[in-house]
């Protein structure tokens, strides 16, 4: 009799322990899951923060670039044209006559200066980038470089245009700009070919220059400049890819891929 009672006691105690165990296990699992979730949200927040920081940085860099460009344009173009107009006016003053030819020359110069100023004003607008598509912004940049006469840049667009989200577009544009800047600064190239291709799931941009070329791995390891590093980092940040293909003496190709959404 005592024996069976012991059995019952043991069984009851065992059942209690098992139930408790299962209950505690359940709680532990919830705890674990919750922690995981917390970690994930933290990581996501961090990702978002870096993204926003990079976005802001890109915006500032584009702005800086724009200011440089404007000061150059004003100095080189508008300034030049207006000086010319001044000289022409000076000649008229000296001769004490108003010659039809000269007047029309002055008028032409001034209206040219006005067009230039209008162009500059347009490029100053901060919404410019958002209003234009990526190829359009790149085309503007190319136009500007071509005008400076240092390089000959040609561009081609293939495929049906698709929309790239604004933030991605801005960062991508900054990557392209950095590519151009590097070519102007380091490559000593005479010709640059830009190709933009709209593929099924992503847009593919490649910029080839026939300059000196370099060893990308070594340059990246040196960590002297920020340009190339920023290109790579930002590409991964917007869920895209960037590739720098170059060898000394063989020119450089910068390839950028960005998904549409």
């Amino acid at each position, binding site marked *: 009799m005592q024996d069976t*009672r012991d059995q*019952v*006691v043991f069984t*009851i*105690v065992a*059942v*209690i322990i098992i*139930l*408790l165990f*299962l*209950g*505690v296990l*359940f*709680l532990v699992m*919830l*705890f674990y*899951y*919750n922690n995981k*979730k*917390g970690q994930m*949200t933290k990581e996501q927040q961090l990702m978002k923060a870096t993204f926003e920081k990079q976005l802001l940085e890109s915006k500032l860099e584009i702005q800086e670039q724009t200011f440089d460009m404007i000061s150059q344009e004003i100095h080189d173009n508008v300034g030049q044209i207006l000086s010319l107009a001044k000289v022409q006016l000076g000649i008229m003053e000296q001769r004490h006559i108003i010659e039809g030819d000269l007047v029309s020359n002055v008028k032409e110069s001034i209206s040219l200066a006005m067009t230039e100023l209008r162009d500059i004003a347009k490029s100053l607008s901060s919404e410019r980038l958002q209003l234009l598509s990526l190829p359009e912004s790149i085309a503007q940049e190319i136009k500007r470089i071509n005008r400076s006469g240092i390089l000959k840049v040609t561009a081609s667009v293939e495929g049906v245009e698709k929309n790239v989200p604004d933030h991605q577009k801005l960062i991508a544009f900054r990557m392209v700009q950095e590519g151009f800047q590097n070519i102007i600064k380091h490559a000593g190239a005479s010709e640059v070919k830009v190709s933009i291709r709209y593929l099924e799931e992503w847009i593919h941009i490649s910029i080839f220059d026939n300059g000196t070329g370099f060893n990308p791995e070594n340059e990246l390891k040196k960590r002297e400049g920020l340009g190339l590093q920023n290109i790579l980092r930002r590409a991964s940040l917007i869920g895209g890819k960037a590739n720098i293909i170059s060898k000394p003496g063989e020119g450089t190709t910068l390839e950028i891929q960005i998904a549409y959404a």
Partner: protein
Amino acid sequence: MHIAWFEYFQIACLVVALYCFRRLRACSLLAFIPLLLIVNVTEFTGTNYRLFGWESNYLIYNLYLLASTPFYFYIAGKMLFLTGKETFVFYAVCILCLILISVNFFFIQSPFRFNTYSLILFDIMTIVFSSLSLVRLTIMDQNELNFTREPFFWINSVNLLFGLITLVVLGLHEYILINHIEIAHKTLYNAIVPSVNAIVYAGYSYAFILCRTPGIR
């Protein structure tokens, strides 16, 4: 007159609840105050039933079961963050349970025998509700949820574990008494239930103290 050691935990819990009145209101847990009053009165009369000249205290505990269940369910509903249809289903289930418990009280096991069926039903509902509540708490889209500082987590964990233990011990109540099932010369009931009670009410008290952020819920 006698006060069992675990009753001090229940009294303390009531005191804490009264002290944290505002916080409880902020967490919509005010129903705990009447519930704890019932608990204290029941437990006091339950341990001192001989003073009143009664033969057993089953009637008191059966009445307790009848009176406290609505409050428990109400609190469980608050902690489940019910929406739309869920509210309807939840309260339908609760009312059904209450009817079953009443029927058992009046007609089946009678007021003078311990209502084990009612208790088992109540425990099952406690286990189900607290598990659901815990799952919902975990899955709910709230970023910074620190479980150790979350009152609902403590209340539900404690309820879950309490439900699991009492399901066996109190469910087998009569069997244990009749067969003199003992651990270390105490009935299984006396060996386990007081400690479990102490833990539960300590857990509640801690949870009440944690209810400090009015506005969050």
